[in-house]
């Protein structure tokens, strides 16, 4: 069915609300001049050049590193959960999915603060641990805590897409494989997993991107000891008022993410990809 005209209203919307604003950001990144205004702009590559300083590249590298790790962990933890829920009966799994999503409707800052209470030196987890006779653990204001916070925040975004693909896998394919003598592991690796790749890719899309640009989690759970690229962008826009540099950093981030997604798409066997990204 070629009803492509139905997409025209949205294309118009996109042009107004996505393309034009981003063109403005692109404009800012390639110019210097009066902050926030459109007059007095001079073309310049200075903003990009400035970013090539090792200290900024370091920041980029650390952010990407952290984002990769957290995406990986989220995937490893989220896939089994998605599988378990997908195998349940419809009524039960609907409830489970909703139970997974409802905490996301509570304010994120509050939930992250709650982790401070749980992970602190005198926090709840250490309280239990010391009562059991062990030495208290150093659970907060380090890499571990930040990763935990990121996984915590992004887990549902990984589970949902994988789950929704798993649920639709044609059961007869699995039965056929089993009939042909495959054991549980082979069924998984040769049938289930390959068919679920679109879901995984969508999940990675929805996790990796925000993970690169997050800064609240690293600020609260990392004890402000990190400077991530999200912090950098925010500082430029809000604190320093240098929208030009801020826009340049954003463009660099976007470019980087697009490249990463292109690479991920190569892993997709189907031509289309999880959500059509690339």
């Amino acid at each position, binding site marked *: 069915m070629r009803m492509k005209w139905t997409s025209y209203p949205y294309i118009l919307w996109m042009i107004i609300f996505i393309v034009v604003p981003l063109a403005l950001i692109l404009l800012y990144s390639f110019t210097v001049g009066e902050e926030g205004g459109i007059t007095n702009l001079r073309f310049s590559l200075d903003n990009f050049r400035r970013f090539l300083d090792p200290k900024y590249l370091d920041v980029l590298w650390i952010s990407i590193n952290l984002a990769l790790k957290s995406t990986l962990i989220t995937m490893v933890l989220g896939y089994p959960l998605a599988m378990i829920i997908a195998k349940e009966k419809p009524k039960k799994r609907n409830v489970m999915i909703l139970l997974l999503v409802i905490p996301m409707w509570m304010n994120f800052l509050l939930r992250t603060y709650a982790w401070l209470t749980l992970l*602190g030196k*005198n926090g709840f987890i250490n309280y239990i641990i010391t009562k059991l006779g062990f030495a208290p653990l150093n659970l907060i204001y380090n890499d571990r805590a930040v990763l935990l916070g990121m996984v915590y925040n992004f887990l549902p975004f990984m589970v949902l897409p994988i789950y929704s693909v798993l649920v639709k896998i044609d059961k007869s394919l699995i039965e056929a494989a089993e009939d042909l003598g495959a054991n549980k592991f082979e069924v998984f690796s040769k049938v289930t997993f390959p068919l679920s790749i679109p879901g995984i890719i969508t999940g990675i899309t929805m996790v990796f991107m925000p993970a690169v640009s997050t800064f609240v989690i690293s600020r609260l759970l990392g004890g*402000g*000891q990190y400077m991530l690229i999200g912090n950098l962008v925010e500082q430029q826009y809000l*604190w320093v008022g240098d929208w030009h540099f801020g826009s340049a950093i954003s463009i660099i981030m976007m470019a980087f993410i697009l490249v990463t997604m292109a690479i991920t798409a190569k892993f997709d066997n189907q031509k289309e990809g999880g959500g059509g990204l690339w």
Partner: protein
Amino acid sequence: MKKNIKLFITLGLILMVGILSTACGEDKPTINVYNWGDYVDPDVIREFEEEFGVKVNYDTFATNEDMYVSIKKGGTSYDVVFPSDYMIERMIEEGLLEKLNKDNIPNLANIDERFLDLEFDPNNEYSVPYMWGTVGIVYNKNMVDDVVDSWDILWNEKYEGQILMLDSQRDSIGVALKKLGYSMNTRNLEELEEAKEELIKQKPLVYAYVGDEVKDLMVAEEAALAVVWSGEAIAIGRENDNVEFAIPKEGTNLWFDCMVIPKNAKNKELAEEFINFMNRPEIAARNTEYVGYSTANIKALEYLPDYIRNSSVAYPSDEELQNVEIFKDPKDFLSVYDEIWLEVKAQR
């Protein structure tokens, strides 16, 4: 189909209610107030609404910079805003503020004289002080056996992993500058380099750079020393009496939050009424009791309980305030501060 019809009707109703309620409420005069979060007694706002028969739209912001972008971007109009000292300086220079008609604000006379005619707004043409305070060190007296009277203690290796610094560029750089004996507002690049080195040296000893969680952490005794605003110190002290506050002898930052009227305010006279109302002694007293910070309104002190009035944390003596400095707007120097902070934070 029936279910769909019901669904559509419900949605339609929600939409209508939504649009109607945002459109209505135009009958009373309104005033748009923009303040820090949780920085005024809600009952006070209600009282103002009742007494003057108006509606108050109350919005909040988290930092001066957020507020600045909100106002600068245009397309919005606030009648009363509560920025801090250096931000007021900047806003005056950029022509973002209205001059106050002091005839409409007789209660300006209730402000402590020490806090009038300050550098950022000579003659108080644009602003009326609301709350003020200092920055100092809170320490847990059971965990710290040294005397706390200098910023040096935050560099003392004995307290490694027990020190909390503020996750705020200017405040932390300011602390380092004061420790070295320089001005918090210096534009001398060498002095700033030194401050940067100090902060980098200190980083291994710092447990975390925090925001408001500092209160939770000090109350829960997770750290021994922290840099805090005086208002926070009062809040901490209320919940854990092992924690004390000290202003280092090298001096510190004195800060003010004041009420101003932005240029495009729709209701300037009502705004001035509001400012005047907030400076009635009983009203100011109620605000300061709710918020826990120190009021600039000297007449309000009579309405406060003794233990607050006499608290040296909330109302330090002039002697303690000897070496204080108010922040000035760094203007183009912001990028210098920013780079310093970046280097400090990026140390692994």
